[in-house]
């Protein structure tokens, strides 16, 4: 698929690399003194996610999470993987937006080289392995799995 054909629901990268996106997110969150304000920012990011098609909000696109629902779609275009995502919870939508800003539009090798531990480093989630709560850890695993599949397919 060419980029011109890519649905507007998939996130186009704003920064040149995943590392640059993580750096930019960290800097933007640093601007706020308290966590309430940071969450206001995160919620705003969620509200600015591209529209997620209702027909993709189904079981096939559902990421297992305990407390809120997260959906994700993936596609390849011009050697990179593009992701679309949504959640029924506002803060989780913001975390989805931030994940897609980091990972969407990157090549599989770059996705695999970008450890989702940045979520923990930024203080956004407590634990990557065990957090059933917000589904973001599961989303990170799904993104990595998609990249592994794509990398395997190319190699």
């Amino acid at each position, binding site marked *: 698929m060419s980029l011109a054909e890519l649905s507007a629901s998939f996130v186009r990268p704003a920064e040149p690399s995943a590392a640059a996106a993580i750096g930019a997110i960290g800097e933007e969150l640093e601007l706020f003194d308290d966590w*309430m304000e940071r969450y206001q920012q995160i919620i705003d990011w969620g509200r600015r996610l591209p529209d997620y098609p209702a027909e993709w909000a189904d079981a096939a696109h559902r990421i297992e999470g305990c407390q809120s629902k997260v959906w994700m779609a993936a596609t390849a275009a011009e050697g990179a993987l593009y992701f679309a995502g949504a959640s029924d919870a506002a803060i989780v939508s913001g975390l989805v937006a931030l994940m897609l800003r980091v990972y969407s539009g990157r090549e599989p090798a770059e996705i695999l080289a970008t450890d989702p531990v940045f979520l923990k480093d930024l203080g956004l989630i407590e634990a990557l392995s065990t957090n059933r709560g917000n589904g973001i850890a599961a989303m990170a695993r799904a993104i990595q799995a998609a990249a592994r599949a794509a990398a395997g397919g190319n190699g």
Partner: protein
Amino acid sequence: MKDNFSPLDLLALRADFPILSETVRGKPLVFLDSAASAQKPRAVIEAMRDAMEHQYANIHRGLHWMSERTTEAYENARDLTAILIGAPSRDEIVFTRNSTEAINLVAHSYGRGMMHRGQAVLISEMEHHANIVPWQMLRDAHGIELLVCPITDDGDLDYVAYERLLASHRVGLVAITHMSNVLGTYTNGARLAAIAHAHGAKILLDGSQAVVHRAVDVAALDADFYVFTGHKLYGPTGIGVLWARAELLDAMPPFMGGGDMIGSVSFERSTWARIPHKFEAGTPAILEAIGLAAAIRYVKAIGFDEIGAHEQALVDHALARLSDIEGLTIIGRAQDRGGVVSFTMRGAHAHDVATLLDRAGIAVRAGHHCAEPLMRRLGIDSTARASFALYTTKEEIDFLADTLLRVREFFA
């Protein structure tokens, strides 16, 4: 520090719970998730540590001093449990891992062992998954019908429908919560039991929440089975209780086989130990039983009248404060309710509310609370839930309400 609000000396009581002096992200911990699991007083922590340091061996088998002393401590937990819930005999107390295991034991031993194809089990719309799934498994394995008694829009059990279901079906067993973990509703256990018995059914009450907040008397309730768990009652995890009438336990086949539950074993056949040991296969949760005993002594020393009055004041105060918050809806308006308040906030997911409260140091539960069918009945998919314990203060509820006012601004 007695005030007009509470009959309890809260400052002294809170000092009994070491964890309450912890901070979360630099803020004092405001723990409003005790219905999921309560914090532990020093008496429980020390009883378990003392056992490990001074008096521990396997029980019921050794002829040595340590084993005899440990057996005595374990069996003392059974005595205290019997007294706690007014059981006519200590032999009617079976220790399990938790309420879930106790219900599974009944579903297996009474359900598969003594119920017949075509009979029904009657539960309600406000059951925890632990009081739904074992009965579904019984239904599917054993040809038992599963009936569901509706609740009213206020979150009370629909007693008219309850009686109608009992009259129109061959109900062998009723299994209903004594207090809802989502709505806070107390059911009228004695009334449920009287109606069940009038229609020839036995009744199991799930007391996981109820036993924490009020004195329970299984004889006065005239129940047949009563289950609860230790960790919600300020005790450790890994220890739960099944109470059942002795004649039922005598008639029921064992749940699990192994050591400690047998009279004698040969390769041809085994005979069962007398009750309650018939239902306690393998080395039990010895230390946890000792911890539970300490928890029971602790709450009995405070007194359920005092605990109940304190928590009622907390619930009344929480309902008043939260009702004042525009856009916040309290889920469940039962006449008789305990220390659990579920709510939703307009425009916000329960997950969002809980995440923001957490940043303020407030621990609440968010989600379906292991009661998905109830969520569907209420037409919602999750709630945030604040739940109270004997150590909860009016100031904590005020802080919750004030923080919710801030959270609401996010979604206004």
